[in-house]
């Protein structure tokens, strides 16, 4: 027997973006169902037990679980329905433009949900050893940083007894401290770039506090061990190439990979949503609507954010887009947006002339003083001086422009 339920908005994923969006949709009078495969709402925030969340969105410094509890309670208070322990396995667009979701859950079995609009908020997956092609044997003891974080913080299991961390992004640094605090010595953090990719705060409080060595411009060039990891080989890089004559071995039984995130768009692709290769997320207009009418995207499934706060804010913007769409708002007229010099990407990919639009960019350069310029029809129509540009930190601006393609360029002033 298949249950059939109808709602205005189906939100896929109850993380920082989905819950913020669900709260906003419900508060605006739309019947809203938020679906997540985990038994607890909050997404990855639940396993991020460290502090540093919510400074922008809640104006208070919270841990991940505290942020999750708050944003979940806000969604419920606004009247959104939470469907947990439930996986969306299929979505199809019906002839009348609505969507039918096939949902699997241990408790309710197979059910169908019809929604007039869908928000994609599935977040990311971690890149792993395969993505960066690390050579060596295939023993047990190799984890992504997030998988180890889940084992330690939610399942109460220790992943090993001594570790090396590949990648110095914030997740890797946070895990260095967590492992140390759980009695697992961290022998080294190995980073291919000349600068740590995580925040200085995390370098100080997660590495310096425990005298954990950070090898910059080094790569892990081998993993040893047959049944279990026995060690890794690290080598310095010269012009990006490992120097085998200077390679050295570090003994450990655990290797964590913290080497970036990839938006999780399997469902989006099934729906025919077009993906931007620069972000790994959907191509969207300024209302965060994808190329499929009625399908919106927000949070890490759209592009990887530095802060949960930004993912929530984007979810809320997608909710505004959904409200507008369901109230019969016209499809935005769509002038193109292009990321030019020193920018990896721009979100959204189009905008409507005469409408104030929020843009997000990922810089490709690190410098202390820079200028961001918007160019239209061959002339600069807007510019803003910026400080402390880092690839690890997203740029967010608001701009209203007239008709014509917009080209953004970031230039160093050093």
């Amino acid at each position, binding site marked *: 027997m298949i249950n059939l339920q109808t709602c205005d908005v189906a939100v896929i994923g109850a993380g920082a973006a989905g819950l913020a969006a669900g709260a906003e949709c419900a508060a605006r009078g739309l019947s809203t169902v938020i679906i997540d495969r985990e038994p*607890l709402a909050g997404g990855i925030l639940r396993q991020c*037990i*460290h502090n540093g969340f919510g400074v922008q969105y809640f104006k208070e410094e919270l841990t991940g679980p505290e942020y999750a509890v708050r944003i979940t309670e806000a969604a419920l208070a606004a009247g959104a329905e939470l469907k947990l322990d439930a996986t969306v396995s299929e979505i199809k667009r019906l002839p009348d433009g609505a969507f039918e979701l096939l949902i699997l859950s241990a408790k309710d079995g197979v059910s169908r949900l019809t929604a007039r609009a869908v928000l994609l908020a599935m977040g990311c997956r971690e890149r792993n050893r395969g993505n960066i092609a690390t050579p060596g044997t295939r023993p047990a003891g190799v984890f992504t940083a997030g998988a180890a974080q889940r084992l330690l913080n939610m399942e109460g299991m220790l992943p090993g007894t001594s570790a090396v961390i590949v990648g110095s992004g914030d997740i890797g640094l946070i895990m260095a401290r967590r492992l140390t605090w759980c009695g697992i010595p961290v022998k080294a953090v190995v980073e291919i770039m000349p600068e740590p990719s995580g925040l200085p705060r995390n370098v100080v409080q997660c590495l310096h506090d425990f005298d954990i060595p950070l090898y910059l411009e080094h790569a892990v060039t081998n993993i040893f061990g047959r049944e279990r990891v026995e060690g890794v080989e690290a080598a310095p890089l010269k012009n990006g190439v490992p120097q085998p004559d200077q390679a050295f071995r570090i003994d450990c039984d655990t290797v964590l990979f913290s080497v970036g995130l990839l938006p999780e768009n399997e469902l989006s692709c099934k729906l025919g949503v077009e993906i931007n290769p620069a972000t790994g997320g959907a191509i969207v207009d300024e209302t965060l609507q994808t190329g499929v009418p009625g399908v919106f995207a927000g949070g890490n499934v759209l592009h990887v954010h530095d802060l949960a706060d930004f993912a929530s804010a984007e979810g809320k913007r997608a909710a505004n887009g959904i409200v507008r769409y369901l109230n019969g708002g016209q499809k935005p007229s769509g002038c193109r947006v292009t990321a030019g010099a020193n920018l990896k990407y721009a979100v959204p990919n189009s905008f409507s002339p005469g409408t104030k639009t929020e843009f997000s960019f990922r810089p490709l350069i690190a410098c202390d003083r820079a200028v961001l310029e918007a160019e239209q029809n061959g002339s600069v129509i807007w510019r803003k001086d910026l400080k402390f540009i880092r690839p690890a930190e997203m740029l967010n601006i608001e701009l209203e422009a007239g008709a014509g393609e917009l080209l953004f360029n970031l230039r160093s002033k050093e």
Partner: protein
Amino acid sequence: MKKSLICLSCPVGCRLEAVPDGKNDWEVSGNQCPRGVVYARNELTDPRRIVTAVVRSDSELLPFIPVRTDRPLPRRMAARLLNELYRMQIKTPVKCGEVLIKDFDQTGVNIVFSSNSNN
């Protein structure tokens, strides 16, 4: 003895150097604003950190419940606190913000739950 630090008061991240001034304090240089001096003195005389961990519980939904200090704890006391937390077994239900340990070791720092046990 000279100490090197990175100031975490703002994104500039000044590289600070501190030397003892012979009067139980530190002479700080490298800072671009007065906050650097305060930061270096605090870090060198009384470094404090927010400490977070998980404690065992009897809940099936959340068998390990996250906890945190409600304010920064003297850094050298983190290991002792963690040892105590790892030995605990909590009876649920508990609410986010509820106090688990009051005034840990007379520091004035409380340890509080950072999640509900039921949602």
